[in-house]
């Protein structure tokens, strides 16, 4: 009973400078629709302090809002790439290809003769020809730049 009452509470929030009202229990899909955020953009909730801002996925996962929460949308987002124990940030856009990020990571890490290197997420190699969005790359993801095969003979 109390959860029904909680779901009806309206809170004032701010998205890209607009003041809006929303139920305090909502979803990513509803927030994107409320502010008219295009599918090509990513929504983030501002987090105070040094912590990373929280990426909001356009899904039906429940999200709890606090009064005066601030959100912003942008087309670019940050991912991390790990190579030989060193982690570096890269700013990317969802429509970029995996190959473009791979080439940039190879350049930044200074790998020479890197034909066996690929990007991996969760143990799965990301296909070069896909966009980052198609490959399921999300804000703050940790990607591994590593060889697809290591062998000797």
């Amino acid at each position, binding site marked *: 009973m109390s959860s029904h009452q909680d779901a009806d509470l309206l809170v004032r929030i701010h998205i890209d400078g607009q003041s809006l009202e929303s139920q305090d229990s909502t979803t990513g899909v509803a927030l994107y629709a409320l502010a008219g955020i295009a599918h090509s953009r990513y929504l983030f909730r501002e987090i105070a302090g040094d912590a990373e801002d929280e990426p909001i996925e356009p899904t039906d996962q429940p999200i709890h809002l606090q009064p005066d929460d601030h959100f912003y949308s942008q087309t670019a987002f940050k991912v991390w790439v790990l190579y*030989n124990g060193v982690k570096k940030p890269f700013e990317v856009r969802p429509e970029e290809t995996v190959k473009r990020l791979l080439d940039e990571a190879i350049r930044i890490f200074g*790998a*020479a*003769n890197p034909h066996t290197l690929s990007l*991996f997420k969760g143990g799965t190699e990301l296909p070069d020809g896909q966009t980052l969005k198609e490959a399921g790359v999300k804000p703050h993801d940790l990607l591994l730049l590593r060889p697809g*095969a290591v*062998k*000797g*003979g």
Partner: protein
Amino acid sequence: VSTLYRLERGLLEDTFRHFRECGRGRHECQALWLSAWSQPGILTKVVHPRHSAHLGGFVLDDDWLNEFWLELGTTNMGIRVQVHTHPGEAFHSHTDDEFPIVHTPGFLSLVIPNFGLGPVGFQEAFLTEIQPDGRWKEVPIASRLVLT
């Protein structure tokens, strides 16, 4: 780019022990020498990767490699030298050239002859280094590795 690495004799002995216990004079085997990014010139750890092997080669397990890559990130360590055995003479094969674990200039690859069954040391071993253009070039062992 080149570094003179310090290696405790105990790590070299551990490396040969892995080669002898795993390869048993019948299979090639690989070990990796690591150091902290805060002190890269001092090799502090030998890692024996999960791999499959036969008389003339080895392949690292892909799941192991993924977990190990994450572990390097959490421990702030980097791979400086890959070390592997050959059945006979030590040299760098085409496969060794094409499929290293690290691709940055200055990375070293050491090949130990006779499956590592000989004396613990660098006798008749072969050391090569990635150059800025991506090619491998043989370098004198004493110019890159010092036993302490």
